[in-house]
C-alpha cells in the first residue's frame, strides 16, 4: 500500500470525471504534439528536399525564392526561361563556374503536367540518373530503370531543331526536316508518389498536358505519350511527385515551337519581327539548370559570377529556404501558442475537476488524518491524482497524435506533398509528457491545499 495506490483508487472511483478530464488532456497534448510534429517534419522535408540542389540557375526576372520553389519544390509556374548557352558555359567551366568547381550541371524544362493531380512533367537529361546525387547516392529505382537522353543528344537536337525552325521562321526556300520524336525518347521515369497515387507501374502511359482536365484550354500531347520505364524509390522530397521525361521529348512537343527557343527583341525592332528571326542552338530555352558546386563556398561564388550575366542568376537554396521557413515558422509559432493555451485550459479543468470533489471527500480525508496522515501526505495524494491524470493523458495524447499521423499520412502527403513519419518519436515529446505532468501537478495544488486543511474532528462522523 502506497500513497500512489490511494491516488489511483480515487481516480478509479470517480471514473466519469477521470475519463472526461483525461480526454481533455489527451486532446490538448495531442494537438500540441501534432503541431510540433507537423512543423518539424515540414522543416525536415523542406531542408531534406534541397539535397542535390546546391545551386539553381534560372532567369533573372524571377526572385531567388520563386526559382528555388519552382525548380526544387514544383511550386508555381515556371517564372521564365534561360538559354542553353548558359548551361553550356556552366558545363564547360570556361566562361562560368570554373571557380565554383561544379560537379554536375543538369538542364531542366518544365511547364506540362499529368493527371488531375497535376504532377509536374520535367524534361531533363540522363545526367539526372548518372550524376545527380542525394546524400552521395544517385536516385534509386524500385522498379525498372532510367531512360537514355544524354548531353550529346541534347546538343544534336538543339542544333537540328534550330536549323529547322530558322528555315521555317525566315521562310527559307529549302526546308530541312523537323527532327523526329524518336520512340526511344518517349519514355518516363516517375516518382514514388506518382506511382502510388496513380497506380502506375512499368509499362504505364504518361501523357503531358496543359491546363486542368475538364477545363477550357486543356490539351493533351498524345504525340508525346511516354511509357513508364522506371519508378523511383521514395525520397520524401518533391522528386516523389515528379515525372521525368527526356528533354528531347519536351522540346519536340507539337505546339511548343514558339517557346522552344528564347529570342530577345533586338534594339529598334518590333516584337512581332522576332517571329521571323533565325534561332541558334544556344538559344534553346530551359527553365532552370541544377548546378552542384564542390563545396559550400561554390554557391556564393556562382551567385557573384552569375551576377555579371544579364540573362540568368544563381539561387542558393540553402540560403533561400531557411529564410522562407522563418516566415512560415512564425505561423507555426502562433499555432504553438494556441496549443499551449489549450493545455493551460486543460490544466484548469484538472483543478476544477478535483476541486469539485473536495467537499464530498472531507470525511475520507478526515479519516486518513485520524489514522495519522500528515497534511503533506494528503497533499501528495491529491497532487498525485492530478499528476497521474495529466501524465497518462499526455502520454495518450502523444500516442494519439502518432496514430492520427499513421492514419492520415497518405492523405496529408497527397494534399501537401509532406510525408509524415508516424514512427518518428522525439525527445521533445518525452519532455512534453513530463511538462504536462508537472502542469497537472501544479493544477492539483489548489485542491490539495483545500483538502489538507480539512477539519478532522468536524468531519469524522457521516452526518457532517
Amino acid at each position, binding site marked *: 500500500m502506497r500513497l500512489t*495506490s490511494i491516488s489511483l483508487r480515487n481516480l478509479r*472511483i470517480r471514473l466519469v470525471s477521470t475519463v472526461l478530464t483525461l480526454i481533455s488532456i489527451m486532446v490538448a497534448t495531442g494537438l500540441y504534439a501534432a503541431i510540433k510534429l507537423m512543423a518539424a517534419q515540414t522543416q525536415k522535408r523542406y531542408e531534406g528536399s534541397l539535397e542535390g540542389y546546391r545551386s539553381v540557375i534560372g532567369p533573372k526576372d524571377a526572385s531567388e525564392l520563386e526559382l528555388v520553389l519552382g525548380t526544387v519544390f514544383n511550386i508555381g509556374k515556371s517564372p521564365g526561361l534561360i538559354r542553353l548557352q548558359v548551361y553550356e558555359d556552366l558545363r564547360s567551366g570556361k566562361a562560368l563556374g570554373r571557380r565554383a568547381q561544379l560537379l554536375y550541371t543538369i538542364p531542366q524544362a518544365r511547364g506540362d503536367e499529368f493527371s488531375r493531380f497535376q504532377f509536374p512533367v520535367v524534361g531533363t537529361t540522363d545526367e539526372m540518373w548518372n550524376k545527380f546525387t542525394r546524400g552521395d547516392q544517385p536516385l534509386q529505382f524500385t522498379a525498372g530503370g532510367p531512360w537514355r537522353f544524354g548531353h550529346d543528344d541534347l546538343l544534336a537536337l538543339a542544333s537540328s531543331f534550330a536549323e529547322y525552325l530558322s528555315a521555317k521562321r525566315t521562310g527559307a526556300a529549302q526546308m530541312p526536316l523537323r527532327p523526329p520524336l524518336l520512340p526511344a525518347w518517349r519514355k518516363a521515369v516517375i516518382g514514388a508518389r506518382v506511382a502510388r497515387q496513380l497506380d502506375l507501374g512499368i509499362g504505364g502511359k504518361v501523357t503531358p498536358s496543359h491546363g486542368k482536365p475538364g477545363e477550357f484550354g486543356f490539351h493533351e500531347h498524345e504525340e508525346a505519350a511516354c511509357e513508364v520505364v522506371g519508378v523511383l524509390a521514395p525520397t520524401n522530397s518533391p522528386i516523389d511527385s515528379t515525372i521525368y521525361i527526356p528533354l528531347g521529348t519536351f522540346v519536340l512537343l507539337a505546339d511548343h515551337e514558339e517557346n522552344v527557343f528564347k529570342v530577345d527583341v533586338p534594339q529598334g525592332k518590333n516584337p512581332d519581327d522576332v517571329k521571323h528571326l533565325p534561332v541558334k542552338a544556344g538559344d534553346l530555352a530551359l527553365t532552370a539548370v541544377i548546378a552542384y558546386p564542390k563545396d559550400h563556398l561554390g554557391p556564393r561564388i556562382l551567385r557573384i559570377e552569375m551576377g555579371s550575366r544579364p540573362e540568368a542568376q544563381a539561387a542558393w537554396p540553402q540560403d533561400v529556404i531557411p529564410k522562407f521557413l522563418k516566415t512560415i515558422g512564425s505561423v507555426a509559432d502562433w499555432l504553438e501558442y494556441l496549443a499551449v493555451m489549450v493545455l493551460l485550459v486543460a490544466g484548469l479543468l484538472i483543478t476544477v475537476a478535483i476541486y469539485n470533489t473536495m467537499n464530498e471527500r472531507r*470525511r475520507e480525508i478526515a*479519516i*486518513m488524518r*485520524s489514522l*495519522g496522515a*500528515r*497534511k503533506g501526505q494528503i497533499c501528495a495524494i491529491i497532487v498525485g491524482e492530478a499528476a497521474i491524470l495529466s501524465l497518462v493523458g499526455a502520454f495518450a495524447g502523444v500516442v494519439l497524435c502518432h496514430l492520427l499521423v499513421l492514419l492520415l499520412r497518405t492523405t496529408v502527403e497527397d494534399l501537401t506533398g509532406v510525408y509524415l513519419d508516424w514512427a518518428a518519436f522525439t525527445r521533445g515529446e518525452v519532455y512534453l509528457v513530463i511538462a504536462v505532468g508537472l502542469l497537472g501537478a501544479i493544477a492539483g495544488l489548489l485542491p490539495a491545499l483545500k483538502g489538507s486543511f480539512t477539519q478532522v474532528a468536524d468531519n469524522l*462522523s457521516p452526518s457532517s
Partner: protein
Amino acid sequence: MIRLREVQKSYRQGERTTVACEVTSLDIAAGEHVALIGRSGTGKTTLLHMLAGILRPDQGTLSILGQDLSTLSESDCDRFRGQHIGMVYQTFNLLQPFTALENVLLGALFGRGAGADAEERALHLLAQVGLEDRMHHLPSQLSVGQVQRVAVCRALINNPELVLMDEPLGNQDKATGGQVLDLLLQLARNNKQTVVMVTHDPESATRMQRTVDLATLRRVSS
C-alpha cells in the same frame, strides 16, 4: 501513560463560549482499560479527540507516554498518533473504496509503514478476528460485525501503546458487539495495551477495569 491536568476545550459560537470538555485531573496507567462515561454533551468525544491529538486543549497539559501533545507541531502530532495510538469509531470509519485488508494497511501506511511486515501482520490480525475469507471484500460487502472487526484490526495494526474507542457498540446488537469488544480487550491485554473507551452503555463499561464519569472530573463551580 496518560496524564491530564486542568485541561479545558471551549467552542465559540458568536458571542457565546461553550465549554465542551473540562478535566481537572486524570491519570491512566499503562495497560489499564478505562471506560469514560457521561451524559450527552459532557464532552466524551471531545476528550477522546484531545487524547488522540486531533483537537488541542485551550488550556492545561495533556501528556501521553510522557509526551506533552500541546508542545508538538501539527505534523508531529499526526505522526505520534499514527505510531502510538489506534482508534475505533462508533461508525467504524472504514474507507469505502478499499478492501478490508487495504483498510487495515492504511492504518499501517500512516503509522509505522506499510511494508511486507505490515501486510503479514494485517493478514494475521484479520485471521485472528475470523475474517481470513473476507479480507478482499469491500466494506459494503461486509456485515456490521465484520466491519467492526476490520476497524479493530486497523486500530491494532501498528501495535499501538494506546487504543481509543468511541462508542464502539453504538450501532449494533449487544451480543455481536460484545463479542468483538471482548476480542479487542483480550488482544489488548496480550499486548499490554492501554484502552480508553467512551461509552454511554453501562454494560460495556463493566467490561473495563475502571470507569470514569466525566461529570466528576469537572471543576466544581464556587
